[in-house]
């Protein structure tokens, strides 16, 4: 079923490994990116059967789907000799 397939895909594709990036080593510093992934997906279909008086060719259908998404880094965990801290990569517009 399509719905079951979508549920499986979401649990398979979106997991911790997707949003926690591979560590980046720079000298004695290790950076671990933290990501945000936002995916939207939808579809619709209609099928209008031919009426009693309409010819068979009058049967019509329409399908529509869309998908949109955004991926951006939220921050990095910086592990340095001084300690471990989270560095925010989301620019705050509020001043």
């Amino acid at each position, binding site marked *: 079923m399509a719905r079951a397939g979508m549920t499986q*895909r979401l649990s398979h*594709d979106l997991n911790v490994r997707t949003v926690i*990036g591979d560590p980046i080593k720079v000298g004695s510093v290790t950076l671990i990116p933290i*990501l945000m992934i936002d995916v939207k997906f939808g*579809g619709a279909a209609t099928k209008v059967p031919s009426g009693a008086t309409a010819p068979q060719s009058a049967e019509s259908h329409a399908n529509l789907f869309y998908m949109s*998404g955004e991926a951006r880094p939220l921050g990095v965990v910086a592990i340095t000799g001084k300690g471990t801290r989270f*560095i*925010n990569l989301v620019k705050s517009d509020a001043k």
Partner: protein
Amino acid sequence: MKSKYACLSAALLLLGIPCRAQLPVGKPLGEYDKLVSQLKSSSLVGEPIRAGGTVIIPFASVNFGLVGGDAKIASGGGLSSKSVPLGFLVVEGDDVRVEFLSAPEDKPSVVRQLLQAILDRKVVFIGNGLNIGNADGNVQDLAPLISSLAKLIAEANITTIGNALNLGSVKPPKNNAAPTEGEPKLPQGNKP
């Protein structure tokens, strides 16, 4: 860095070409799998760039959209993707700091520019500004209205779009004389 985003955009584009839907959630789900599998941290956080004792790591956001549909006689689809650099991390020894890039200015679309022009009253839509329908009268009766409308448009320095005047079935001048130069000419015999 740029080439990486170009590759991602090209991959997104290739995914979008065959996306004319035959089923609303059939084939597109396969494309969805490919798309999500390509979204990795390396797509958003670039390779470290070393410059002396300083290392710079750029980061960016990726936006994408995909739409498709088909009906009995037509099908179509669209794809958009955008990669925007957000800033970079600067690593100097044990110090890590972040520098943000200024947000790119949104270039207003044509629709938004037109909407703003309408709000600023630089563009005025006049659809059938004067419709006399089947009312009795002739074109000479309209002269004051036409001139006042033209004066309004000229004084306000505005652009008009649409039909400013719908004469309907107005009758020609009573004396049936040929219109002089500069006088509006009416089509003859256009009664419904």
